[in-house]
């Protein structure tokens, strides 16, 4: 690798080493730097796709075998930074982001055009789109555009939204710790006075006004804004962060189309929207190369800031006076960072195309700043910066006024087992779709707006789609979650065994029988498929026996011969009372007798031989034809909300037994039952 770097540097310091005449000979032996970049890009793209493919449980060679399938998500520093803001902690795997951060500080924004799989896809489509275009047209396409600052504002917006809990803590100081608040105010005023006296601050009057304004704002908001849940951390970076975005898109829209690489056809409710966003992002490359990267990508913005003062950077060499201003370096510039002029370091994604295309070998990757001058940081407008900051601060509280995290929580939002309580969950969930891909039963789906705008694409369970309910012995989703929004649980904890016996199993919700749709409840038909499939022991679904007189079921006894009764009344359905579920009932005063029907014609029934007619009905008396039903009931104490009953219910449209989130373990306030210690 060391050698590979030397070629582009031949016109800088290293040129002395090799001498100008050596350069062409070297070039034939060494790989061009852009070739190295392309190989790296293809490698990471294939690695990423491989990780997506293997995120499946099974025994085939291409299924999960301890591959670090979250590795790219963990390398993504926006995930790490945003969750650090929202949770004030760094979940173990996200420590990988430190590697990226350190490398970015040393090398610059390398991730975008060397690692990022989304970037690679854009890069390739952009390349295809500009093929055949004239050099001048391509130069025009790669001109810097002020709209490239949008991504920084988006980053600020998203990070401020993630920092909601920090803000909440700050506001709470005012009413809850007035002494601390007063101390901070006094010390900051004293500090200001001191600094003014020492003449460190040029304009003490202006500084004092600003300080008093900030204190007033803090005091006012602290007293006015209630602490309850509205001002809270909400992780929304995943909407635009390229790594979660591309994971989500591949997992939920592309891989399900390739049915052969899954054991059964996977469906994802609402995946069209994810696909539309993905496709739009890709198609925008036809307009401007790397449109997404240049204008929208918040991760790119973060790298832009981190890499602004990187040790190595692209720039024109000492001999830049030789630059003929041909702008050929702009021809394939991926970042639109104007390498020929004041290079914008924060926009440069180190595609190295400029070094390749400069006919005079003037552009290099070196430790010194560009001779042609450079702009390290993006020149953001203070006004827009503040607007983003304020918008990010107020967006989440306004969204939460819907009450979906509070009293208006939606019972249809059933989270996977191990999911944190909703406020904490929303502070961690990346919407990356890894849990949706790994779920062996395909019951985890991207939420629409059920859990609010903030919960878009977060995981919810759907028991109609998929191959079963939540499998009792499966904890895959909780172990794949890269941010512990679904925290890693053990099987013992899920099933309430061992040390968790006291706490009981993890409940995702509770099943409710819809008596208006249930066959035994509403339609006089035996069924109890739900009871049969309830996987817990003892079963959470139990039945009560009920004899229901069938429609028009009163008949007059015309004749009795052995076990056969001839009946007067409407025609009986030929043979259909012989299923073992139908009975003849007689009433003798208060006493009821029932005989199981073994056979029937349209005018007679024969009861089973073993059921002697000892209290035989009298001639001309009336009997009833009854069906024995086992009607299902749910014991909320035992139901874990796994949804297997809902999945199996033969009422295949709107199921007659359905799980909703009541009584879920993660929200004690939604408990159905009185809790006794």
């Amino acid at each position: 690798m060391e050698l590979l770097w030397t070629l582009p540097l031949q016109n800088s310091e290293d040129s002395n080493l090799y001498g100008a005449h050596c350069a062409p000979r070297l070039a034939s032996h060494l790989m061009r730097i852009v070739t190295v970049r392309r190989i790296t890009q293809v490698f990471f793209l294939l690695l990423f796709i491989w990780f997506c493919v293997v995120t499946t449980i099974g025994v085939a060679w291409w299924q999960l075998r301890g591959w670090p399938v979250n590795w790219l998500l963990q390398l993504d520093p926006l995930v790490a930074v945003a969750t650090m803001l929202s949770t004030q902690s760094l979940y173990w795997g996200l420590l990988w982001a430190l590697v990226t951060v350190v490398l970015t500080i040393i090398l610059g924004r390398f991730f975008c055009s060397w690692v990022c799989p989304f970037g690679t896809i854009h890069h390739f489509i952009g390349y295809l789109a500009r093929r055949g275009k004239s050099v001048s047209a391509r130069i025009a396409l790669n001109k810097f555009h002020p709209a490239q600052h949008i991504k920084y504002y988006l980053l600020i917006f998203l990070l401020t939204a993630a920092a909601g809990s920090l803000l909440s803590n700050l506001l709470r100081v005012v009413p809850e710790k007035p002494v601390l608040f007063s101390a901070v105010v006094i010390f900051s005023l004293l500090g200001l006075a001191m600094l003014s006296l020492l003449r460190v601050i040029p304009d003490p009057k202006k500084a004092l006004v600003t300080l008093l304004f900030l204190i007033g704002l803090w005091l006012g908001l602290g007293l006015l804004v209630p602490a309850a849940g509205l001002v809270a951390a909400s992780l929304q970076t995943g909407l635009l962060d390229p790594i979660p975005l591309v994971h989500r898109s591949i997992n939920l829209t592309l891989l399900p189309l390739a049915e052969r690489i899954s054991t059964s056809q996977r469906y994802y409710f609402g995946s069209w929207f994810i696909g539309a966003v993905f496709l739009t992002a890709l198609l925008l490359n036809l307009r401007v190369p790397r449109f997404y990267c240049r204008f929208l990508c918040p991760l790119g913005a973060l790298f832009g800031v981190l890499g602004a003062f990187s040790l190595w950077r692209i720039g024109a060499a000492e001999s830049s006076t030789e630059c003929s201003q041909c702008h050929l370096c702009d021809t394939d510039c991926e970042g639109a960072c104007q390498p020929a002029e004041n290079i914008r370091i924060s926009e440069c994604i180190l595609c190295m195309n400029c070094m390749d295309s400069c006919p005079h070998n003037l552009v290099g990757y070196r430790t010194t700043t560009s001779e042609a001058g450079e702009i390290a940081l993006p020149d953001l407008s203070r006004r827009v910066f503040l607007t983003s900051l304020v918008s990010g601060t107020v967006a989440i509280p306004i969204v939460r006024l819907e009450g979906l995290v509070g009293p208006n929580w939606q019972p249809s939002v059933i989270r996977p087992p191990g999911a944190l309580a909703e406020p904490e969950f929303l502070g961690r969930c990346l919407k990356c779709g890894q849990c949706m891909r790994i779920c062996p039963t395909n019951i985890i789906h991207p939420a629409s707006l059920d859990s609010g705008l903030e919960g878009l694409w977060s995981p919810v369970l759907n028991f109609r789609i998929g191959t079963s309910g939540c499998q009792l012995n499966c904890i895959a989703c909780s172990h794949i979650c890269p941010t512990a929004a679904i925290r890693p649980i053990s099987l013992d904890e899920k099933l309430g065994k061992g040390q968790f016996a006291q706490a009981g199993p993890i409940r995702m919700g509770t099943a409710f029988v819809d008596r208006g749709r249930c066959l035994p409840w509403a339609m006089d038909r035996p069924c109890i498929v739900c009871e049969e499939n309830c996987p817990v022991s003892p079963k959470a679904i139990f039945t009560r026996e009920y004899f229901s007189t069938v429609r028009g079921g009163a008949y007059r006894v015309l004749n009795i011969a052995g076990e056969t009764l001839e009946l007067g009344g409407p025609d009986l359905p030929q043979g259909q009372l012989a299923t073992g579920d139908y009975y003849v009932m007689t009433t003798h005063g208060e006493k009821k007798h029932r005989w199981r029907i073994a056979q029937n014609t349209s005018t007679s029934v024969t009861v089973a031989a073993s059921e002697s007619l000892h209290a035989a009905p009298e001639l001309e008396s009336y009997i009833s034809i009854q069906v024995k039903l086992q009607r299902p009931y749910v014991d909320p104490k035992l139901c874990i909300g796994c949804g297997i009953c809902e999945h199996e219910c033969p009422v295949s449209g709107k199921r007659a037994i359905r799980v909703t989130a009541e009584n879920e373990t993660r929200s004690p306030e939604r408990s159905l039952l009185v809790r006794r210690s």
Partner: protein
Amino acid sequence: MNQRAQQHTTNRRDFLLRLLKGGIFIGAACSLSYWLYDAAGPGVVREVKDLVTLPDFSLPSLKGKMSIVTGGDRTEAIRRALDTMGGIETFIKKGDRVLLKVNAAFATPPILSATTNPQLVAEVAHLCYKAGASSVVVTDNPINDPASCFALTGIEEAATSAGAKVLVPKESFFQPTTVSAGVLIQNWPILWEPFQKINKVIGMAPVKDHHRSGASMIMKNWYGLLGGRRNIFHQDINTIITELAMMVKPTLVILDGTTAMMTNGPTGGSLSDLKQTNTMIVSTDQVAADAFGATLLGKTVADLLYIPRAESAGLGTADYEALSPVRVNVS
């Protein structure tokens, strides 16, 4: 002006050319419309796939054989049971292609006995190969997620280690069938693909409590061959089980009553639902096997209506003693 003049000179030729092109398009549009013209609209008849019928896998010369072995070791018990019938060679000949229909309905570990015991599967597959079978296929259409079921029940690993092939059902494996003497299984999808080229079928099921039908044993286990939304048949459970027994005529059935699920069936879920009943039943009569199995659950034939119904349908005998079963104790 000049151009216009030129156009004038070529006008006729241009027009004829355009006329020709237009004519071709008009002609194409008309023919396409004529070709695709549909005066009636879609009718009521739906496309019906060709029906398939499972062949009779039973061996007429071996009717009514039964062996009941008591003992706690499944491997030992199945070997002895087969020995009393002349060894598995009586049923499986050289070059036979055998299908083992196991019960893999639930994604639960084998210790909970809700599914066919994996050791038993391995042993039977092994014996089949020893008798010269050319292939052994293990299949079921489970209730829980199929892949999870075969993995967690241990059946996949056991079968594969014995050299048998596990076929996890896919949409394309199903074909409709009709049981001619029945009323429920009419043009209903069954797990057909695994039966391709098969000439021997062995049904293998555990003895389990079942709330709706009373017990789930050999005959109920054929439910796992049905596809579609088969749960609707629970409305008439005794009829569907009888029809399933009509549909499948196995070479041999193995009813594993080593550990019976006494309560909370058919899922179980707790060791307290189980009881050691230490019995292995091997028979060529599935009705007799179930009739005996009922006794392990403390039930009688009269409690399980599908048994007398299957008997009266001529599928076997509920009076298993009439078959003079060989009784052996290996414990």
